[in-house]
């Protein structure tokens, strides 16, 4: 607590005292959601992330058959046999949730969006590609993202800035970062207070930026009177974003993060943004690396990564067909029993998933690794893409959320709703919800098998 008052005096001095008439905002960054200090010895922050890949798997080759801890590495899960830098195999940090369904309840199965929107928002869409509810990551960010510099970080390895995974509200996407260099600059650029860069001197412009935002807020009520209900929601969201930006400036004013594992990320290597599979894998890796440092410095607690779009545009160099196209067009090889070219992208996607976990596992935190204090949820939009299957959507959870969940378990869903997983995640992240989803996708039973 003493530290906060020290910083306040420092700011007053820097800003020439009375010249700045506005009140110094509460330095929320030192507080957690319960208002208690986040000092050394306090619990480490818990983070939630979502990671998606498009166009599913071959369920018979992906789903393990053995439930519980002793599940087998199936042909399409071999990537999980890799060793993680923090020790142990990926499979020991990942739970596999197979056989959870999207039940459409009589609504149409819009190809590639029916399963995805239902799973991530809990509501089966009525219009193709239209999100009427926020996605899981936004629901969680709206609760646990209020005290960090970035409420959440959205990333995409598809190379296309106009494809969205995370939705904030009805029809409003959270646009992703598509360039690792841009992500790096945003988090670790000039605004970042480096804990190892000597004495901290806050930039006086930060407080002036606060005053700019407070002027903007004055027009809220007048504007709201001029709008209909839908537009008022959009305006409210704008002002929620203003509050978040004020929070971001509060965090910057408070100085460097006070976390043992925090260090400025090294600059990312050369990027090559695009949707050839080698490009997407590189982007995914570079961003995961930056993200791991951002999480260790508590710059955010919520993130999402779209490795490939629901209509996966992944492509092998020299090929005339994209992943999505191949899942529909390529014949099933009679001897192999699957589509060999399309299936290569399933292997690539699973490799990319482990690539994403590696940097999280590489950073020590507390008695374990950063990954131990994360819950990372991976899933696809369909089960078997060729027929747009929404029965048995592949899902996985990595990390142990600070000991709240057991990793390394295979849970067969037995045709229960995919939203059970989203419900479980919300509960683990501290949201007071008993049920999640609407109509045919409403779930009330958490996945108890992975709860500690």
């Amino acid at each position: 607590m003493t530290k906060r008052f020290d910083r306040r005096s420092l700011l007053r001095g820097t800003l020439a005292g009375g010249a700045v008439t506005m009140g110094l905002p509460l330095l929320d960054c030192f507080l957690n959601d319960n208002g208690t200090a986040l000092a050394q010895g306090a619990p480490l922050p818990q983070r939630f992330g979502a990671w998606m890949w498009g166009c599913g798997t071959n369920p018979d080759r992906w789903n393990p058959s053995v439930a519980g801890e002793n599940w087998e590495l199936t042909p399409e899960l071999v990537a999980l046999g890799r060793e993680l830098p923090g020790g142990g195999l990926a499979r020991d940090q990942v739970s596999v949730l197979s056989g959870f369904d999207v039940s459409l309840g009589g609504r149409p199965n819009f190809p590639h969006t029916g399963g995805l929107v239902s799973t991530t928002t809990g509501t089966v869409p009525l219009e193709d590609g239209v999100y009427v509810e926020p996605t899981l990551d936004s629901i969680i960010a709206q609760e646990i993202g209020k005290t960090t510099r970035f409420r959440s970080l959205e990333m995409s390895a598809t190379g296309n800035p106009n494809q969205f995974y995370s939705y904030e509200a009805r029809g409003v996407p959270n646009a992703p970062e598509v360039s690792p260099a841009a992500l790096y600059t945003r988090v670790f650029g000039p605004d970042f207070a480096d804990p190892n860069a000597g004495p901290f001197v806050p930039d006086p412009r930060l407080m002036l930026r606060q005053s700019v935002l407070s002027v903007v807020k004055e027009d809220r009520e007048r504007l709201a009177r001029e709008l209909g209900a839908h537009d008022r929601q959009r305006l409210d969201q704008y002002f929620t974003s203003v509050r978040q930006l004020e929070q971001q400036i509060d965090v910057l004013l408070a100085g460097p993060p006070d976390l043992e594992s925090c260090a400025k990320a090294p600059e990312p290597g050369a990027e090559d943004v695009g949707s050839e599979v080698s490009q997407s894998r590189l982007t995914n890796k570079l961003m995961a690396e930056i993200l791991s440092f951002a999480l260790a410095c508590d710059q955010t607690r919520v993130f999402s990564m779209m490795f490939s779009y629901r209509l996966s545009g992944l492509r092998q160099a020299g090929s005339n067909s994209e992943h999505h196209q191949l899942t529909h067009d390529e014949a099933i090889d009679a001897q192999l029993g699957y589509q060999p070219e399309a299936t290569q992208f399933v292997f690539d996607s699973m490799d990319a998933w482990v690539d994403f976990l590696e940097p999280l596992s590489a950073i020590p935190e507390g008695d374990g690794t950063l990954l131990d204090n994360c819950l990372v949820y991976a899933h696809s939009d369909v089960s078997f893409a060729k027929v747009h299957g929404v029965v048995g959507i592949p899902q996985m959870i990595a990390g142990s959320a600070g000991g709240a969940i057991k990793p390394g378990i295979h849970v067969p869903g037995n045709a229960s709703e995919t939203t059970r997983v989203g419900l479980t995640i919300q509960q683990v992240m501290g949201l007071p919800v008993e049920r999640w989803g609407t109509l045919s996708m409403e779930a009330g039973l958490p996945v108890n098998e992975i709860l500690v």
Partner: protein
Amino acid sequence: MQVRGYLALLTAVVAGVAGLSLGCSDGGDPVSAAPPVEAGPVALRRLTAEQYAASVQDVLGDHITVPGRIDPDERREGLLSVGSTFAGVTPSGLEKYEAAAAVIAEQALDAEHRRDLVRCEPASEGASDDACARSFLGRIGRRLFRRDLSDQEVEARVAVASMAANTLGSFYQGLELALSSLLVSPDFLFRVERSEPDPDDPSRIRLTATSVASRLSYLIWNTTPDDELLDVAVDGSLLDRAVLAAQVDRLLESTRAEVGIRALFSDMLDFRQFDDGLVNKDAALFPAFTQTIARDSKEQTLRTVIDHLSAGRDYRDLFTTRRTFLSRELGQVYRVPVVTQFGFEPHVFESELPRSGLLGHASLMSLHSHAGRSSATLRGKFVREVLLCQDVPTPPADIDFSIVEDTESELRTARDRLEVHVSNDNCAGCHNLMDPIGLAFENFDATGVYRETENGVTIDATGELDGVSYDGPVEASEAVRNHPNLGPCFVQTLFRYTVGREAVESEWDLVSYLGEQFEESGFNSSDLIRAIVLSDGFLTTSGPREAQDVSSEEAQP
């Protein structure tokens, strides 16, 4: 075939359904008199990235480099313009707007340009000067907010300028922060379309004069209203039809109207994909294709459209015109000589070349292809949906395309492979709508380069569009040009673009009437814009849009 909105009605008329009323309640001649219209709702419209950049440069100076890092717009109903009435500002979105505002304000008030922009001298450059700040912020704020600012709005920003100037010891740096507060305000980022009861007829709700000015300016110039337009908006005279008509003419006659045509067609044709570098081809299969060619091909098409429409030519002839503009890089694609070393020169494709109209351009052919091959289906879908406003249903969820792409088998051309669809009842319904159009353009590969064969087999480019048969891209373009939906569809798209939403049912008669006017004018796009702006579809509304909760609705049968 599903047909959208009022075109369903039109199709019935085309099919010869006699005696169908076009809704003219006074029994007058439906061609000459505008039908009464109950216009749809207005909505908050977030500036598109293009409008944001254009508005900033217009008000603060052409020298400003507007940061590209703001949130992308989302397409709805085939237009970014419609998506803008749903777009919000997320936390990361506002972060980008705030960063952009700081970068813009710094450039606007740099040492070289501050004098011209501010137009008053502070008493001291090292401290605040409220009088000078006030006059600057009031004048610039009016252009950015597209209306006069209230005293309170100005004074709040004068206070920011003052505090910041004194803290930082610089008048201009103080002004930068005050300017930033205008640029991140919802009044700038969103176009707020306001309405009020018409004093002459209180049952009629009209747009306010300043809202009309914004609609007009963003429609024709795709930027914020200029001072002359704001003057007649602020004093209310713009709501007088004669004044409005004069302003429409002034805007249309300005060379800046070209920017508006560019914006409309970029949106309608989804050319943002070129700007975002998303039109890519496989490097091994198409080694000659470069991003320069991609960007130049987009520019070729837009220049062709602007030149054609600005000259008052028939909209439909865009699909048969051989007049165009080429760069040297494009000369290689079309295999014609181009003299100009840098930039574009006018060119007329020779009649023996199969390049007739926009559908013969590399831009549309490469955009509606995959990275590794052409797509008759995507090209057909584009013609149906974008040019003819006919909805192609989404594919059934349970489909098997496996034979279509089996290039190893004896099915060597796209036609052979696609014909398999047509022999399958599940696929035939939709593919019969798309493929016969696209197959006529199979002579253009995935980059728009002409070819005679695919996998060693001569391409058969025959096809049929709603009863008209053709062979090859030139005849197919002629069929598109003569299709009865082509003109009415453009009217529908332009109306949707103007109001930011699909026409509601009570506006269909108006849109249909505008279609007739368009035809009477010889499909002159400027006349169409005049007719739209002077209609009650533009000037009146049912009021602000209300929320609709679709999450709990039951599925449609």
